[in-house]
């Protein structure tokens, strides 16, 4: 019989008056309070973290978000905002006795301005819909996190999500021109505008991007779009060693080629992805690079030729080009399933996000493999090689405390090493709960104090997603 390792703690009781006032402000369908309704909101996409919330509310507009924030402040109830719950650092996992503010019902695209190349959306719009809306008028929204078919744009901004195209196009931050935010006191602010240039005052907008719901609640997002590239070409290169693949990546960058996508999968990941997606990946290879170049047709053709040559010079066993646009999409989609597909192997899948300067990639990969061997833990690695953003993924079993202990030890060493190479704990998943303990080490005392000061200024009572990124003392005094 299974034993429970992570019992769902009983929901912390909410002040009855808080619930009464919420019920007065929202219709019945927009508030969930039964245990059967709440349990499914007790987690996001992160392994081994769960906590049943006190209540879930679905606001329909900015005003109703502000209402929840004001009531929460009045009754001192913590607020955790959430989109589709696909986060990978526990950023939207509830805290005891909190109200979950689920923004999924605010899902309208409000405006597509093809003169200024901007798109205005509510936070609950699924990222794929934004891509599709832009695509339909010949424009392009590049950020494409692995979960883009599910994740919401609000969540993408709150976590500053990356994706497969980060190398050439950057991450979510690079496409946010403006935000509407509800602050901790319930006031509503607009940060940014449609101007390409704007230096009026501090860049407050950027403060909220990647703030993981700890500073305010994003209620509208103004996005920058770019022209759709006229051509694209996808290549698959297979290798007998991870080192050769890593060296190819360094060589491509050194030759001043910036492909749109430069993804890496090791053999374990490759086999899991192929078992699910059946797109004909070469499962015998030790390592695989998925490379995409886009832009003007002539430039694409030239880059593809040069990339093919560089791959061959660096011991690629084979280089294959996607035969059609459909095949290219199938390959990218298969790659996006990598994290979930790895869950086939062991009961618990813990995805890490250590990122290093690209020049240090080969060193980092070697270190990960040595560390896994040393601690006898199973690690599969894939990731955005071109960005130096790796996803070493621990395949383990949360019910085995001894094994989990070894996983934690290995993880700590990998973080330490990434930092020693001038890297970061997290390239694109955020700190949330999962990496909170390591953050002070990366930032150093002075920077961490600055972070705390900002949090205290914007959320003096510590009610917005408390305990994420950093711990806030109960009655926050610096």
């Amino acid at each position, binding site marked *: 019989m299974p034993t429970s390792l992570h019992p769902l703690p009983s929901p912390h009781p909410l002040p009855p008056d808080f619930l009464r006032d919420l019920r007065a402000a929202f219709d019945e369908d927009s508030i969930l309070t039964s245990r059967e*309704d709440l349990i499914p909101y007790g987690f996001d996409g992160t392994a081994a973290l769960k906590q049943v919330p006190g209540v879930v509310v679905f606001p329909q507009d900015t005003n109703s978000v502000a209402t929840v924030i004001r009531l929460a402040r009045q009754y001192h109830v913590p607020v955790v905002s959430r989109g589709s719950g696909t986060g990978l650092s526990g950023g939207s996992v509830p805290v005891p006795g909190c109200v979950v503010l689920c923004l999924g019902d605010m899902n309208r695209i409000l405006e597509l301005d093809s003169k200024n190349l901007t798109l205005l959306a509510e936070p609950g719009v699924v990222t794929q819909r934004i891509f599709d809306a832009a695509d339909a008028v010949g424009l392009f929204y590049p950020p494409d996190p692995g979960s883009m078919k599910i994740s919401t744009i609000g969540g993408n901004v709150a976590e500053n999500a990356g994706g497969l195209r980060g190398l050439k196009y950057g991450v979510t931050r690079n496409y946010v021109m403006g935000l509407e935010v509800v602050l901790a006191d319930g006031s509503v602010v607009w940060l940014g505008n449609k101007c390409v240039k704007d230096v009026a005052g501090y860049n407050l907008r950027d403060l909220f991007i990647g703030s993981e719901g700890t500073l305010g609640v994003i209620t509208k997002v103004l996005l920058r779009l770019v022209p759709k590239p006229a051509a694209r070409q996808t290549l698959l290169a297979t290798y007998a060693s991870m080192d050769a693949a890593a060296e190819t990546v360094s060589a491509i960058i050194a030759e001043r080629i910036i492909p749109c996508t430069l993804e890496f999968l090791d053999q374990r990941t490759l086999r899991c992805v192929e078992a699910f997606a059946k797109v004909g990946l070469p499962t015998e290879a030790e390592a695989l690079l998925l490379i995409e170049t886009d832009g003007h047709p002539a430039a694409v053709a030239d880059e593809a030729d040069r990339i093919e040559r560089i791959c061959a010079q660096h011991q690629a066993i084979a280089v294959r080009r996607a035969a059609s646009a459909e095949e290219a999409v199938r390959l990218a989609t298969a790659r996006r399933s990598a994290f979930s597909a790895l869950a*086939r192997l062991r009961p618990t899948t813990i995805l890490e996000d250590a990122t290093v300067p690209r020049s240090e990639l080969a060193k980092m990969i070697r270190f990960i493999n040595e560390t896994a061997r040393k601690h006898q833990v199973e690690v599969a690695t894939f990731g955005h090689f071109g960005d130096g953003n790796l996803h070493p993924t621990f395949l383990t079993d949360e019910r085995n405390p001894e094994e989990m202990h070894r996983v934690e030890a290995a993880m700590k060493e990998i973080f330490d090493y990434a930092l020693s190479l001038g890297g970061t704990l997290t390239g694109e998943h955020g700190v949330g709960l999962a990496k909170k303990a390591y953050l002070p080490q990366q930032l150093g005392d002075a920077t961490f104090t600055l972070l705390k000061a900002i949090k205290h200024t914007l959320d003096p009572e510590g009610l917005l997603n408390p305990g994420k990124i950093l711990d806030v003392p109960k009655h926050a005094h610096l």
Partner: protein
Amino acid sequence: MSSHLPSPQSPTNVPPSALPPSANLLQSLDYSVLQQCMHCGMCLPTCPTYVETGRERHSPRGRISLMRAIADGELDVTRDFGEEMYYCLGCLACTTACPAGVDYANLFETARAEVERRGVLDSTRRKGIRWFALRLVFTRPRLLRLIGRLIWLWQESGLQRFARWTRLTRLLPGRLADLEPQTPRIQRHFSDALIAPVERPADLPVRARVAVLTGCVQDLAFSDINRATVDVLLANGCEVITPRAQPCCGSLHAHNGDTEAARALARRQIDLIDPSTVDAILSNAGGCGSHLRHYDHLLRDDPHYAARAAEWSRKLRDIHEYLVEIRFRHPAAPRGAAGAPVPLTYHESCHLCHGQKVSRQPREILRALPGMEFRECGEATWCCGSAGIYNITQPETAGWLQERKAGQVRATGAKVVATANPGCHLQLENGLKAAAADGETPAVVVHPIVLLARAYRAEREE
């Protein structure tokens, strides 16, 4: 009547002695089955009930979290939980979307069985209906066919038309009055009258010996599909065995939490067709095939049947899958008869594409049809709302899905819609009829194999 059938009075599926009073069926699952779900959310956009409501509880990962909470003893098997398990269509679209390979079909059937074992949804009316359908009618093939014959008489004698015309059908109680127009048209002849126990190809060497499963509802309402199945197999050099008065395969029971009856029916099927005597066992209905394939799992703990059930599952094929496997002969176009090609589209039965992962093969058959132009349907893999008896138990969601499906089919401009499951067939027919504008002829719904059989026939009639 077979002695190992459960008694119709037995309210539960598991002998009370098998489980301690505090335990539940979800706990009896290997925990890794539950833990396999890492709640990444890849299933969300493919789940019709989540897309309709936007609430996690109505999503695959939400439902699994509830099952896990029950297995962990953090939630009781409540009425709310029971209702959630029956709000799920069981379309298994999530299993196609799931990169982690979660065995949702197993989880879902176990959860429903637990709901029934606990009786949290019990009411006198529900118990009565379940007893009548699951334990009485659908375990007794001859009784089912007798009822079919009576409905046929009602339809053929003009009584049905009279009752509808005089609006007497409005006197039926509540939901029955709404459902009456959806009663399938019963065939004059059932399969046993149309198909001989053994048929051999007339002018071809025999390349394989196969058994054809005629189904239960399929046999009453679509015996012509069974005949077409045999015709197509004969045309491809197969010797066809069709056992008489075949029982229900038990999928209805397994999907509705009556595992014990499902096992009994599986044993009867295996008694009827010894898998060692044939090269393949063929199903032509998506819902049945999806269940029939898993007899190995269903009977794995049965010392007398486990080995035969394993062989059964190894040899079970969907008809489209089998035809493509044996490289079916593409029908030749009749000479001279070339008019404009008839636009044709395809709706995938959930349990064919998600349950059995047979998606490419029916299209291959449809594309091989002369005189027809195949067009893809948007959301072809979305549930039409039929989902077994879902259109009876959850009319609102079923209706929403039916309209959505009819809209997608109409958008293709197809005159013919092919589909390979009796439930979908009826749901599409009714949906297209309702969606048709005044004076518009709705697209004709037909099984792909019937189209193939027609094409072979047209060759000969030249």
